[in-house]
């Protein structure tokens, strides 16, 4: 165990602090994952990447900063940004999921082409995974990809596609080998959302906003070289991507930031003239959550140390999505409780992101969105299957005796 701030770390801390002091005016108010980056966000992202405060460990040749992974450096940067209240780098499916997947299994050409614009926020990705008949049973995807010359021709439908309405690109799971068993017939393709034959229809969620979409494909032609790994390897690639998604959803720094925001809220909210932070029953709810967040913070540092050493954390890694999303939901639930009745005014204008300028509205939207995170990316129940089977070695539920001819 070595968490000491050696000179190297103290120097980084000073460097980050002076960067923030000099540039805080350029920080956007928030870098949501629910909207297309505007010019201010893109300029900020470029600045962060150039200085190594985003894409820090992405190799230089792909446009990153090229630092070797260091848990402490990442923690120092996250903490200084959080303390100063300036926006950290963009969190998106492209940056958090596709880029590590390309680094793990992409070809050199694919990495060179896609990583740089993605980490700069210029190319926005959406994830073409779920279908009406393939949710928790993701390997049941039926969207077809048929090879025609040097293109795959894609037909079918995707659903729950976040940010498809403004994304530039999609990473898509489709069935290219219909004669092979379910898990071996899938391929993982990259395609432009500008390709003819794609129709995006917004899907309004309980937040009142259309952050999701349905996406329809009619004879959409995708260059055959835009496949990751080979034909039929899509399930392998998808699981690599999902591994990173689950890590992203468990990011502890975000939760620690929330604890501090809720504490500030409790210091200014009063009932019968008394601050909530001074009421033991309110304070205890928050301090208890702080303990959970601390556990996840140090757990994350442990996992990052494992990753840097090339050790598979096994169970430790598998619990991150379930732990993080359930805890995040409890945190936003506490925030909306602190606002109480005074925070119930809710007007989520659909155009752009107003509504979120009102903090109580934003917390309510987060609270509902957090429930979406519990359901999406492999629901909590699917996570529990994965944890018990792969982490604890418990047997799979026996398959019901359904005739082989029945599909679905």
């Amino acid at each position, binding site marked *: 165990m070595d968490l000491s701030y050696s000179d190297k770390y103290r120097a980084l801390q000073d460097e980050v602090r002076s960067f923030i002091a000099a540039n805080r005016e350029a920080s956007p108010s928030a870098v949501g994952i629910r909207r297309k980056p505007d010019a201010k966000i893109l300029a900020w992202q470029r600045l962060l990447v150039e200085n190594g405060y985003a894409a820090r460990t992405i190799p230089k040749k792909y446009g990153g900063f090229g630092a070797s992974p260091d*848990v402490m*450096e990442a923690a120092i940067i996250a903490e200084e940004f959080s303390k100063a209240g300036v926006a950290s780098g963009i969190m998106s499916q492209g940056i958090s999921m596709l880029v590590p997947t390309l680094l793990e299994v992409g070809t050199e050409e694919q990495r060179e082409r896609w990583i740089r614009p993605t980490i700069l926020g210029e190319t926005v990705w959406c994830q073409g995974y779920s279908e009406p008949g393939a949710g928790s049973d993701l390997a049941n995807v039926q969207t077809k990809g048929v090879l025609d010359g040097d293109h795959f021709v894609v037909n079918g439908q995707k659903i729950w596609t976040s940010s498809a309405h403004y994304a530039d690109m999609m990473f898509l799971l489709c069935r290219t080998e219909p004669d092979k068993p379910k898990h071996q017939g899938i391929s993982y393709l990259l395609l432009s959302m500008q390709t003819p034959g794609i129709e995006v229809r917004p899907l309004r969620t309980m937040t009142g906003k259309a952050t999701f979409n349905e996406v329809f494909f009619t004879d959409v032609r995708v260059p055959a070289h835009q496949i990751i790994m080979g034909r039929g390897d899509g399930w392998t690639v998808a699981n690599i991507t999902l591994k990173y998604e689950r890590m992203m959803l468990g990011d502890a720094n975000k939760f620690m930031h929330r604890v501090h925001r809720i504490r500030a809220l409790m210091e200014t909210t009063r009932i019968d003239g008394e601050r909530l932070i*001074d009421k033991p029953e309110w304070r205890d709810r928050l301090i*208890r959550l702080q*303990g959970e967040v601390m556990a996840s913070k140090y757990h994350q540092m*442990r996992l990052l140390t494992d990753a840097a050493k090339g050790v598979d954390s096994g169970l430790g890694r598998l619990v991150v999505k379930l732990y993080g999303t359930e805890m995040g939901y409890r945190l936003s639930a506490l925030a909306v409780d602190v606002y109480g009745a005074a925070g119930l005014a809710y007007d989520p204008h659909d155009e752009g992101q107003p509504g979120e300028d009102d903090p109580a509205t934003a917390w309510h939207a987060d609270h509902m969105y957090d429930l979406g995170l519990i359901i999406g990316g492999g629901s909590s129940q699917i996570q*529990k299957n994965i944890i018990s089977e792969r982490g604890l070695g*418990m*047997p799979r539920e026996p398959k019901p005796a359904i005739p082989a001819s029945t599909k679905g």
Partner: protein
Amino acid sequence: MEFALTDEQRMLDDSLRGYLARALPLEDLKTLARTAGGLAEDYRRALSEMGLPGLMIPAEHGGSGLGLLDAAVAAEALGYHAVPFAFAGPGVMAPIAVQAMANAAQQGEWLPKMASGEMRVAVAFAGGTGQTGTADASLSDGELTGRVEGILDVTGATHVLVVLPDGRAALAAIDAPGVSAKLKPTLDRTRPLADISFAGARVDVLDASNDAVAATRRVRDAGRVMLAADTLGAAQAMLDKAVAYAKERIQFGRPIASFQAVKHMAAETATELEPCRALVWFAAHAHDAIPEEAHVAACHAKAHLAEVGRHVQTTTTEMHGGMGFTELMGLELWFKRISLDRHALGGPERCRHEAAVAQGWVSA
């Protein structure tokens, strides 16, 4: 930067667990718990030879000079095997208290004896921990009067060190005139608690600390981290047993481990428990290396492990069905161990309150 155990710490863990798995089979443990007399002499000698009493004592006094993270590794292993061995007091809190509060002559006299196991010092707090029960003692002219209830690790102790509210401490031989120690049958049969009354007992006074309040807090924090580590080990043992049992137990023609209702209980439990390990490691490490974060981390570790421990003891007992409710499996030994850890040295509500005060969220 590295958030992991060192090779030496892993070796300590392996050798302790290896020995305990071999030397303390369940039937022996159940017998020891029934007699409630603490660990048989040969086990205690073996654990002493493995260096537990001197773990935290500097090398110049005959110990190993290791830190609280090493001690946490040991405490987790002891909790995992529910070992009736007095470690948190004599092995951890007492060495820290003596080094922080005793003068050089006292340290020179006591520490080598503590390292060899000749002197085994239980630690009592005359208030300040939030533990329920009487905790009241006062010192006058080198004589201690009062009563402290619910003291850990008095089994086999030669001395008791009473940490006083003013930051001094008083050391008395357990059989000294005016000291009346009574071990009581306790919920956790592997670690009986004791009540001790002092009636003008002659004591050695430890008053050499230059920051007495900080010193007592450090002793208390270390004890709390040890109890958190003990819960971590005990809870992990309960989960491992429950998963193993579910894989063997057949109902409706298949192992109950194949039912989602059972799998999901296990998965929820594992998800709560697994991140606890890093919190305990951090709290222990901070005690030695990051003093400004140590107190809050110790409070959180104690409180969080108490809550997760409650969840684990509940779900894993349920997973054993009716067998979990009996004494046959011995599972109750671990259940009760977690219960003791929760209440000793302050329950979770108290520890969270201290964490809030320490962060300035509220005034004391």
